[in-house]
């Protein structure tokens, strides 16, 4: 099967899933409407009303994790083609990737020493 056909099938599956979900929503809607009652649409917050929207609450620490993730994620994109030809190229490939990973690993150790992996 040509790669293009395969991706077309995958796209078709996504569209079919969306269609299925839409049908489910339609059936659900035909079963009856939601009654409009006071206090019903308030999110669960132990009975209190939140003073402001919840869209502000995240910790500055996420940035550290995001940077670390980016570093390793970029490396992974490079690693897949390397893994496919690894056996052909042999020892040179191991050394190449070893040096590269060592530099990355130093980054992880640096984050570790700076308490970047600790969550307060």
């Amino acid at each position, binding site marked *: 099967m040509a790669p293009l056909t395969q991706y077309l099938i995958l796209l078709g599956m996504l569209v079919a899933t969306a269609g299925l979900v839409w049908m489910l929503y339609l059936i659900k809607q035909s079963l009856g409407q939601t009654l409009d009652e006071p206090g019903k*649409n308030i999110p669960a917050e132990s009975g209190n009303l939140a003073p402001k929207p919840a869209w502000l609450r995240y910790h500055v620490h996420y940035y550290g994790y995001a940077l670390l993730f980016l570093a390793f994620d970029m490396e992974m994109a490079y690693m897949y083609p390397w893994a496919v030809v690894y056996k052909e190229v042999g020892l040179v490939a*191991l050394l190449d990737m070893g040096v590269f990973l060592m530099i990355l690993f130093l980054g992880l150790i640096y984050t570790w020493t700076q308490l970047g992996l600790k969550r307060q």
Partner: protein
Amino acid sequence: MTPFLTGFIIILLFLSGVYVAAVMERWSVTGHVNWGGPVRSFLLLFAREEIKTRKHDKVFFETAPVLFIGVILLTISILPFGRGSVVIDLGTGALFINAALVYVMVALLMAGWAINGVYAMVGGWRALAQLIAYSMPVVMALTATVMRAESMFLTDIVESQQGLWNILYQPVGFILFYISALAITFLPPFDLPTARGELAGGVWADLTGARKLLFRLGRLTLVFTVSAAVVVLYLGGWMGPWLPDFVWTFLKTLLVAASFFAIGRFMPRIRHDHLLEYNWKYGVPLALYNIFQVGVVLLL
């Protein structure tokens, strides 16, 4: 058997597998095996009122459930169930598993964000941190299997395990992938995004009706999908004597899924900070070690 009949049987097996997963999910919470339980909760969720929280994010509220279940179905469609019965044999199969499963995290974050409630939002951020952390060992363990097979075709990865399954060839990779798979499915020891006790349901706290139903169904399919991925990558896929090949894949997948739920039944929920620390301090170095070990063994 004709390919059509095989395909039909595989779809039936898949549906029954998801149903058994639903029964086991119930068992892992209550300790009782109730074979009619999933039908009952399906009808219950279907009949429930559709409540939308005030000031919710409309786009994310509608797209998150569809995205969640969509990417999981994409992943299961590329996994090979048998030698001849592969729906789509992608040239980038191993990469595609990882790329698709990352969207589970995106969908959870979108759902948590959309509700505009504090608990759901905290659950969403937790899902983000947890799945970002655990996608690292997944990718690295996958790379080691690709190194052995010299190909990213999943069928080639299964064929490369002829003689010695990857679970014995690279046990460290298997353990890492297994634990990370458990974290990706956010099942009980790792159920921080949807924790019942701490967050009153987290991401799912305010979803009702059809959207909750989609998330529940999606998670069961996700458990089955990830178990199938463990089988394909580490447990020799369709290999086994006597029975047809897809039956072997199915049996092994059920076994892996059962082990997931058994762990959830007998383990306490892990703390969020511990979860992140364990992964970055032990998981990532171990995954790198695994790549190194496989590399050296391959060259010998």
